[in-house]
């Protein structure tokens, strides 16, 4: 049976958008690193270093793991005058590093292994 190319294109779009809207209707869709699909705020779990996100600040990390911000900055070889209220992502990227580097350091330091 021949398929009309217009119908084919329409089906492609309907199928793709249908999956997205179906997931949204089912409460599965989440695009945020701040809240879960159910709307709960994501916070640092001291047992899991991977819960440290790029939008968090050095103050957030310091408070959660009990490490002074100055120690984190020094360990990451970041300028000592970096405001700890800045987002991790912004500071790390500006210094050609990734947030993963900080996570690795936290892991090495024993954070998250409690």
């Amino acid at each position, binding site marked *: 049976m021949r398929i009309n*190319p217009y119908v084919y294109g329409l089906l492609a779009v309907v199928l793709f958008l249908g999956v997205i809207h179906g997931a949204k209707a089912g409460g599965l869709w989440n695009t945020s690193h701040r809240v879960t699909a159910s709307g709960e705020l994501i916070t640092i779990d001291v047992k899991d270093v991977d819960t440290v996100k790029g939008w968090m600040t050095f103050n957030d990390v310091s408070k959660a793991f009990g490490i002074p911000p100055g120690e984190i900055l020094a360990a990451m070889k970041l300028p000592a005058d970096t405001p700890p209220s800045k987002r991790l992502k912004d500071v790390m990227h500006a210094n050609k590093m990734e947030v993963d580097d900080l996570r690795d350091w936290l892991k090495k330091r024993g954070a998250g292994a409690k």
Partner: protein
Amino acid sequence: MGVQLGAIRRRPKGLAAMWNVQNVRHVIQAGFLAAVVVMAVRHALVPEGALNSPPSPEAYCPFGGIETLYQWITTGKYIHHATSSSLILLGGVLLGSLALKSSFCGWICPFGTLQEALTGITRFFERRFRPVARFAKALKVRTRGLEVVDRYLRWGKYLMLAYFLYGTILAARMVFRPYDPYITALNITEATLGPGLVILIATIVLSFFTERPWCKYLCPLSPIVGLVGKLAPVQIERTSTYCKDCAICSVECPMNLPVATASRITAVDCNDCLKCVEVCPRGGALDLILRWPWSKPAVSPQ
């Protein structure tokens, strides 16, 4: 479509010609590209921090779903930069491939659209300015010998897929991200000189000279879509009885597939743009057919 089999198809004129399959496809592609661009601009302009700040457009990349799949299956968690939307989009792409072959690549993928648009600029100048047309023709003649290179380069996307899947599983992080030209384009305001930016610039430059260079040679999503699409009950088939071997389908194919000599287009590289089907001048010679992949192509009536 009411066309006599084997007869020359009459081309629509006027307004009807405007709404040909390719133009409709371009409108759909432009819609998806515009949606992604709006998201990227909103993300760049609105400062992050608030709970309702616009999500990163990365959340709308199905390749993130592939990268996080192993982690999600084994630990129930997502790797960094991936969210549930990445997995859901991957599901949408795979379901689309299973039902309609590479419809995602040809009709939806915003990065494919960007490349097509750039090639379209070259085609526009070729049609209007004779020196540009002459240059393009000379370039085609001079690069004819590179067809062998092209054939080998196409294996690049399988290597990319294998390398990045292996790396992602080992490192549990998006190892492809620094190389991804699509993500670099979406985060262009934060881009620094690195492999992602170099690949993006190379893709943009090459797109002026060849169609969809990223899709042909390096896109790691393309083999997945193409291989899953082999199970789809939709096939592009050529009926040799009605075909007059004009080979215009092969000339028009953006992926340079030998459509004119195949009985069924089974190539992983086919992105189902349907240019070949639309350009074919003979009714019934080249069609999109609903048929299981394991069934034999229709026998041409003698």
